[in-house]
């Protein structure tokens, strides 16, 4: 009895049995809860299913074509691309500066790092509610600051005048030029399409900058110190060192931050859903909110699934890029 128990244990501990046994539960769970719904989403997108039932008539690619014909869908697609690209461009630049500054040691670094991490750690839905108040139509602190003398007692300085002086001019291209700000009628951040778009982009950049920064810091910290010395010997300093030494070495890890940032922004629904619900007049709809409006509010499950599945090809490309970066890093 004892010997057969021993043998059973030996078999159990053999690698080719034990490893799959330990991995299987996680894999089964993931296949059930990610794989199945993904297949189900693809199936739904090929049927005319509505909220009442999971099955519908097979309609082929009609949902994909129908939703494409909708003007709102194309705006949603365009907005998704614009929000993602512009916010990630802002993130890369800001995180680059921040990481270079934070990699050094200085007094009070822990506290400053804590402040910088706040946007990433706080639940997005809740911080977006905070922005609802910051961009409020009557009590917006942004507008208050713009239209009041911010050095009371000192020289009279009204920020909106500086902005008007700089940006409300003819020589700017349309995207940058603004109409003059009037204190009596301050900007309606969430009520005017372009301002609402700007607000959404800023919130996305705001919440992803901390994430990109910490990843950049990890990359900078992992650079071997010999490289610094070698660069010094060769006389590379400042911008030249950044361009010829730091930048190429940091490219893979920066790419990781960028790819995650793209996924987090393009697939997010929370910021837009809480801030504008796609308004005003559907001007800030993105693919995810439009899928929600169509599939849940409009009960057209098939079309909703088709809308969200337009996200799948770009996601697949991002995944492939990530694997490519990972392999490249491993080789070097």
């Amino acid at each position, binding site marked *: 009895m004892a010997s057969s128990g021993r043998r059973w244990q030996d078999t159990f*501990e053999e690698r080719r049995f034990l490893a799959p046994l330990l*991995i299987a539960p*996680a894999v089964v769970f993931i296949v059930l809860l990610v794989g199945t719904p*993904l297949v189900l989403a693809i199936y739904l997108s090929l049927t005319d299913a509505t909220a009442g039932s999971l099955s519908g008539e097979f309609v082929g690619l009609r949902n994909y074509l129908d939703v494409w014909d909708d003007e709102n869908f194309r705006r949603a697609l365009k907005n998704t691309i614009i929000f993602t690209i512009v916010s990630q461009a802002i993130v890369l630049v800001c995180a680059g500066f921040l990481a270079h500054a934070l990699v050094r040691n200085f007094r009070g670094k822990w506290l400053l790092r804590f402040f910088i991490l706040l946007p990433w*750690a*706080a639940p997005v839905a809740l*911080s977006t509610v905070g922005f609802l108040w910051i961009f409020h139509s009557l009590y917006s602190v942004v507008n208050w600051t713009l239209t009041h003398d911010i050095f009371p007692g000192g020289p009279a300085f009204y920020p909106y005048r500086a902005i008007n002086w700089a940006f409300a001019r003819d020589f700017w291209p349309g995207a940058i030029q603004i109409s003059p700000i009037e204190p009596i009628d301050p900007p309606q951040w969430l009520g005017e399409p372009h301002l609402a778009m700007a607000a959404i982009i800023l919130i996305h950049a705001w919440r992803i900058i901390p994430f990109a920064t910490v990843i950049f810091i990890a990359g900078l910290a992992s650079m071997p110190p010999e490289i610094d010395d070698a660069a010094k010997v060769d006389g590379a300093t400042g911008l030249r060192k950044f361009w010829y030494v730091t930048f190429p070495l940091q490219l893979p890890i920066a790419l990781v931050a960028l790819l995650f940032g793209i996924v987090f922004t393009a*697939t997010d629904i929370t910021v837009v859903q809480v801030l504008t619900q796609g308004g005003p007049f559907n001007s800030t709809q993105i693919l995810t909110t439009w899928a929600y409006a169509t*599939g849940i509010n409009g009960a057209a499950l098939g079309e909703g699934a088709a809308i969200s599945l337009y996200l799948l090809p770009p*996601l697949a490309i991002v995944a492939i890029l990530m694997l490519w970066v990972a392999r490249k890093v491993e080789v070097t």
Partner: protein
Amino acid sequence: MRRESLLSYLIVGPFAIVLAFPFYWMLMTSLRSDNDLYDIQQVPFKFNADSPTINNYKFLFQETDYLQWLGNTVIVGVVVVGITLVLALPAGYALARLSGRWGQSVGVGIFLTYLVPPTLLFLPLSRVVSDLNLNDRLWSLILVYPSFTVPFSTWLLMGFFKTIPPELEDAALVDGASRLGALTRVVFPLSIPGILTVVIFSFSLVFNEFIYALTFISNSETRTVSSAVPTELIRGDVFYWGALMAATLIPAVPLALLYNAFLNRFIAGFTGGAFR
């Protein structure tokens, strides 16, 4: 002061102010009275009539279901953390130790599922949840949330177990311990930091998650914080901005503190494994 640290302050300082400003503003707003808040003549950067006050916090805890929402989120969080550990710990260990080349591929495959976003899956899952009669029940969230906590946690733990030298286990095995014994007595005590990271990560994801909670649950008593605050506290024309800001601030600060403490582990999770 050295020139380099001065430069650091000049860059980091303004960023810290801008990035943390919304939270400072939530705190200010949550401490102001209605008379102060809705008086357009007042300077909003200082406390005026009847302020500072804790009335907004009183209102939040006494007149709304906020405590219930927090409780719901914590319940879901604890159960999800449990499920995540049960699934991810053995898988992460096995992927790091016991399997060769194909283990690497399974690991990468598991990680890739982390990239499949809830916004792609919420429509079919909403049907499945209502077919299972789980609508408006916390079980729906408990069932679905591990689908994004398990992949990342497995990946994170895999990276972590790789840093524990296998010789430690081999020594225990030579001393006559079974593999299970070596695991529980040698490996797991060493991996407490990794386990804690997974706990915090999964817990904060549960606090963060919005779209499943919004779709699966529509009655106030079973909502979680993230979906309850934007839907239940913002309704109709009456906004309780002071209470709203208190509601957003309360979960944010502890989560940020925890994140800060475990920052380096998270970075290893996102960049580690393949990027070492």
